[in-house]
């Protein structure tokens, strides 16, 4: 069974204090790993897809990386507007099955 574990559950940073969020996964043949951002009271918003180990994607202060067992979302010099819950999801090799989501990391950036 495909599984996704995100850590930490919550992270509090000072503005400008860089850090990383972790997404560990167990999947039978990774066909894609997805990062989403979710603001309070809203639906998740797609950020990145990674397909193979060594791949990296960047968007503003965010960079996602992928290894064979985990993905990191690096946040460089965060601002208060980066505060949100970040969700990770994977697609395995098991036919026409939906994404499997982690429970998310709740990030707070304090000015």
């Amino acid at each position, binding site marked *: 069974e495909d599984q996704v574990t995100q850590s930490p559950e919550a992270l509090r940073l000072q503005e400008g204090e860089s850090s990383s969020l972790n997404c560990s996964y167990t999947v039978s043949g990774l066909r894609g790993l*997805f990062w989403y951002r979710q603001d309070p*009271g*809203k*639906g998740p918003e797609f950020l990145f897809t990674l397909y193979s180990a060594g791949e990296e994607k960047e968007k503003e202060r965010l960079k996602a990386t992928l290894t064979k067992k985990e993905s990191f979302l690096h946040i460089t010099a965060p601002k208060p507007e980066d505060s949100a819950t970040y969700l990770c*999801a994977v*697609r395995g090799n098991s036919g026409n099955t*939906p994404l499997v989501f982690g*429970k998310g990391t709740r990030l707070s950036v304090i000015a």
Partner: protein
Amino acid sequence: DVKVTQSSRYLVKRTGEKVFLECVQDMDHENMFWYRQDPGLGLRLIYFSYDVKMKEKGDIPEGYSVSREKKERFSLILESASTNQTSMYLCASSLEAGYIQYFGAGTRLSVL
């Protein structure tokens, strides 16, 4: 841009009522999904549909049913609402089941 529209942002219903949550997508996607999201439990898949009139149970289908009469519309039905169905409900659509999912804004349902 993909647009997934959920008919209500907030709903308040009474125990025992029949509740309909509607979702419409405008990108001709084959797959549509219903999730509920609760603090500490993350996103949990209720039902999904990979074609018109087709449906598949997710992880927590009990107490729910769905309807997909047209490709763009996917409805979640609570046959007899209960207090433990108070939650945030999220609809999503995707080109393929295991591909990027695009979410609606969510419906916060309170059952009293």
